[in-house]
């Protein structure tokens, strides 16, 4: 059994149920924690921020949630080395909170997942995330093989990594670029990037390696019933599906 995992629910979060379910199917002890229960977050060992539209993305995607009381606990826990994993809107919140790439002070973002380019339109596309760092770079990816491909769905309007050139250089130099978009055969080129993301970025990790933010949704390709190559046994985890990163996260919490 793993340590206790809190899946945070802000007003407007919408992917929490499948996130909890996949964590549990991967052996995690995961529970939902709503914004009105922030005081309980100190009892947890790890945190997952799932997808949705926290606070309706008012001001900017993730901006209001980044200053929510729940994030006070998450920021403190991250500083103590507890694992924090953000997916899609959860990733946007982690960038707005300055936890990833973490190259500046907390709550002072140095990058953003912002409007897609060249067209600022919603993208819904099956993608592959390729692990671009040594697995041991992050506790959350430590159980993945080098160069792992994680299938997932990109489903966002604001998923393009943007930062000043100075901060993009810091992201590269500091080995913060955890995942890049890739083709199913592992090739990495511009055609694999669904949203114009700088550096082909699909995910970022902080300096200490305990906070990971990814834009696409692996939980939407976790079981046979939602895996592209559907098999018998709908409720079983798809062997080549997105559960691999959840398993690795759960191991980090164990």
């Amino acid at each position: 059994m793993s340590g206790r995992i809190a899946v945070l629910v802000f007003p407007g979060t919408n992917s929490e149920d499948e996130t909890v379910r996949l964590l549990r199917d991967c052996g995690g002890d995961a529970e939902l924690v709503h914004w009105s229960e922030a005081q309980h977050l100190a009892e947890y060992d790890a945190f997952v921020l799932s997808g949705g539209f926290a606070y309706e993305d008012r001001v900017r995607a993730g901006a209001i949630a980044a200053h929510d009381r729940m994030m006070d606990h998450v920021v403190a826990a991250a500083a103590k080395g507890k694992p924090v994993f953000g997916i899609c809107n959860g990733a946007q919140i982690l960038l707005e909170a300055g936890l990833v790439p973490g190259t500046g002070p907390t709550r002072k973002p140095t990058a953003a997942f912002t409007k897609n380019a060249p067209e600022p339109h919603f993208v819904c596309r099956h993608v592959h995330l390729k692990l671009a760092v040594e697995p041991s770079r992050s506790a959350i990816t430590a159980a993945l093989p080098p160069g792992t491909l994680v299938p997932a769905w990109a489903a966002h309007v604001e998923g393009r990594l943007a930062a000043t050139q100075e901060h993009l250089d810091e992201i590269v130099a500091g080995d913060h670029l955890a995942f890049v978009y890739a083709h199913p055969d592992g090739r990495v080129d511009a055609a694999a990037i669904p949203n114009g993301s700088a550096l082909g970025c699909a995910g970022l990790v902080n300096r200490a390696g305990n906070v990971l933010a990814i834009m696409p949704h692996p939980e939407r390709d976790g079981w046979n019933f939602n895996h592209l190559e559907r098999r018998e046994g709908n409720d079983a985890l798809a062997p080549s599906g997105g559960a691999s990163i959840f398993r690795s996260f759960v191991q980090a919490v164990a």
Partner: protein
Amino acid sequence: MRRGVAISLKIPDNTAYTALVALRRLDVAVEHIERSDIYFFDDGGDVEMLKQRIESDERIFNPNKHRLAILDSEKPGPGELWIEPLCHPERFDYAQHRLHRRVTGWRLYDAKNRPVGHSVLAVAAERLLCNPAIDRPIMEDRAG
């Protein structure tokens, strides 16, 4: 010439209210906030035509919930903070009225309903309203 068109809600602005609550939680001394989307178009020498075209097209204006004001300056006034994206993926025109620029305009008031000063605007931008990775804050010149 370039003409600013401010479109704001005449129904309650939940985004402005949420920003107000968040800023107060962040210890920014603000009592009331107004927000508008500000577009700068070529007016084609006929600002009334520009206004009519925007009002009759529902891409950025819905008569049931928006009000439209023509600005007489391309700079923010007292108590105003404009947030401008560093890149502009959105491009659209109304006939010959080309869109040049788009900003989000915030107007902040203190407890006495006066526009807040430069220092409060700067703090509001830094703590919430501007992400410097993708935006730049624009305020009234201190001397102005």
